[in-house]
């Protein structure tokens, strides 16, 4: 085996220019492919995390009719028991309660429809990182009477600045219209244009007091240790509390499900294209190398090198050149991805604004999982083996008597 390996390695470098070109092609192909995979994965992961943080959490609990009817009186029953049950679950990371109501916002300049979210300021910041998205003012300032946070775009439309007042109008549980004055505490930015133009946050206790005689909650948002735990915890919660509706992010958002599935599919399509190109490059080189060495391969068969070894020799040559190129390509890609993961890939100069319109970050942090890397390594080896099959088979068809005289 050692001799066969030595012979294969020296055969690979017999035509250094050709082998170097092929090796570089494999290395550059893998580098470019892995980088593209990492960037697209990074974009999707960031989008996924943002949607989880700002919108869906890993699991949400509502009154069974709330998501379809969105009526203010469809609030959660047994909130204390729900919270107590959740605290017992080992998967729990954070949770928060929200009051949700649709209404109108009015400033001296404009009136607009808004989604009003009543939140527990401390818990909310731990679940949705809302305080980190402020671009003006303070986060639900407790010193203000009826503080309100709104999207920067909405504030611009309403032409209000922190410290100025707006009026919110909404329906209470008795279906009476209620209007209340709120003071703008700060404005936030969001990757979602719709959210920045139509969502406001107020303290839950303030909103709840306008809506009903006692505290009411419409949504329990839960973050778990891992997104994959969502469905299992939702199912257990549903069993324990049949009077509510518990849904994991997969059921709450078809977009999120599509994002994760699409991300995986995109990765494998990219890898597949690279491997296909690699296979044909290898096949071409190995076929040329086999045809050029007909005489020599015939001699090896003549002096008694068995077909298994001749087959092994050509396969080893394919594996050696592919492994060398792949190693170089993976190394380059890892160095490049690590550097980009520290610095971030700023796409704002390359049409990043368009990305932002669709809710994607313009500063991408590439992500490459060890699973993907391992799978690529295995697929590269498999490709090298498959590409060697035809040239090796051609070598085995040689008639040694004819080959040594050609």
């Amino acid at each position, binding site marked *: 085996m050692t001799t066969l390996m030595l*012979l294969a390695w020296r055969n690979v470098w017999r035509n250094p220019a050709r082998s170097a070109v092929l090796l570089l092609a494999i290395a550059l192909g893998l580098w470019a492919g892995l980088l593209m995979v990492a960037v697209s994965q990074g974009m999707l992961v960031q989008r996924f995390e943002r949607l989880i943080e700002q919108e869906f959490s890993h699991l949400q609990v509502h009154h069974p009719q709330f998501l379809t009817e969105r009526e203010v009186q469809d609030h959660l029953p047994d909130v204390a028991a729900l919270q107590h049950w959740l605290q017992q679950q080992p998967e729990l990371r954070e949770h928060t309660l929200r009051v949700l109501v649709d209404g109108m916002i009015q400033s001296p300049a404009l009136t607009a429809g808004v989604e009003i979210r009543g939140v527990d300021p401390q818990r909310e910041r731990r679940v949705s990182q809302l305080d980190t998205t402020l671009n003006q003012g303070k986060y639900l300032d407790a010193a203000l009477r009826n503080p309100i946070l709104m999207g920067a775009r909405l504030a611009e439309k309403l032409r209000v600045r922190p410290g100025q007042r707006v009026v919110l109008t909404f329906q209470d549980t008795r279906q009476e219209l209620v209007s209340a004055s709120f003071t703008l505490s700060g404005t936030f930015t969001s990757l979602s244009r719709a959210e920045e133009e139509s969502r406001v946050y107020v303290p839950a206790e303030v909103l709840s007091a306008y809506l009903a005689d006692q505290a009411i909650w419409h949504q329990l948002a839960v973050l778990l240790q891992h997104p994959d735990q969502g469905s299992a915890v939702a199912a257990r919660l549903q069993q324990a509390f049949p009077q509510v509706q518990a849904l994991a992010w997969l059921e709450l958002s078809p977009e999120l499900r599509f994002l994760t599935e699409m991300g995986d599919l995109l990765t494998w399509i990219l890898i597949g294209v690279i491997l296909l190109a690699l296979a044909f490059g290898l096949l071409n080189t190995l076929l040329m190398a086999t045809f050029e060495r007909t005489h020599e391969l015939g001699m090896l068969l*003549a*002096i*008694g090198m068995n077909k298994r070894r001749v087959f092994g020799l050509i396969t080893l040559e394919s594996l050696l050149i592919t492994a060398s190129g792949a190693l170089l390509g993976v190394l380059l890609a890892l160095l490049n991805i690590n550097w980009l993961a520290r610095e971030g890939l700023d796409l704002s100069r390359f049409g990043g604004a368009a990305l932002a319109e669709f809710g994607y970050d313009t500063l991408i942090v590439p992500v490459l999982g060890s699973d993907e890397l391992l799978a690529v390594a295995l697929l590269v080896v498999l490709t090298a083996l498959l590409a060697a099959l035809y040239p090796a088979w051609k070598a085995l068809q040689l008639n040694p*008597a004819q080959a*040594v*005289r050609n």
Partner: protein
Amino acid sequence: MAIITTHGLSKVYQAGKVPVHALRDVDLSIEEGEFTSIVGPSGSGKTTLLNQLGGLDRPSSGEVWVDGCNISALKDSQLIDYRLRHIGFIFQSYNLLPVFTAAENVAFILLLQGEKKDRIRQRVSELLTEVGLGDRMDARPRELSGGQQQRVAVARALASRPRFILADEPTANLDSQSAMKLLDIMEKMNREHRMTFIFSTHDQRVIERARRVIRMVDGAIESDQVQQPEPHQA
């Protein structure tokens, strides 16, 4: 004692729709220790006969027996193993592996046979010294002259201690001096180790040194003569 015997050996090739009779009913016996030339014009069947004796090709009819074994009846894989263990080959264009050194080329066949490394090292050194290349063991084929490359090929053929060596026009690409030196070495191996050599050749110098000359015409043996080889003038 005969080590090779052929019975009614024939080989017919198809050249398009025309059958070409490369060998016609050849009966032949080669004794151990012979130094035999197969001669004849191009297309007379010399190489075809050599290929049949070496198990590189299969006869259309007839049999080749080596040491009591009908090698024509062996399966492909058995035939490859048979060649590895029992037959040495020397080719017209040397056919050394260009990526290996002289020593590695000789060692390769022993490695294929599964010999131990220390024994291989010793045998390779002995053989290359015997063919006068003890100081060129680490040279690659491109660093050696044609004559030197053919001497490495002789060492390789001898390495596996074969029952006989088949040499297809071994001096065809060599100048007179290299050809004579090669013949000297092969004669010495024949004399000292009783190694059986069978050549195909056009080369009068080789024919004169052979002790038996088999002349072929149109795929058949025309004459088979034992002769007193002419002494070589060094």
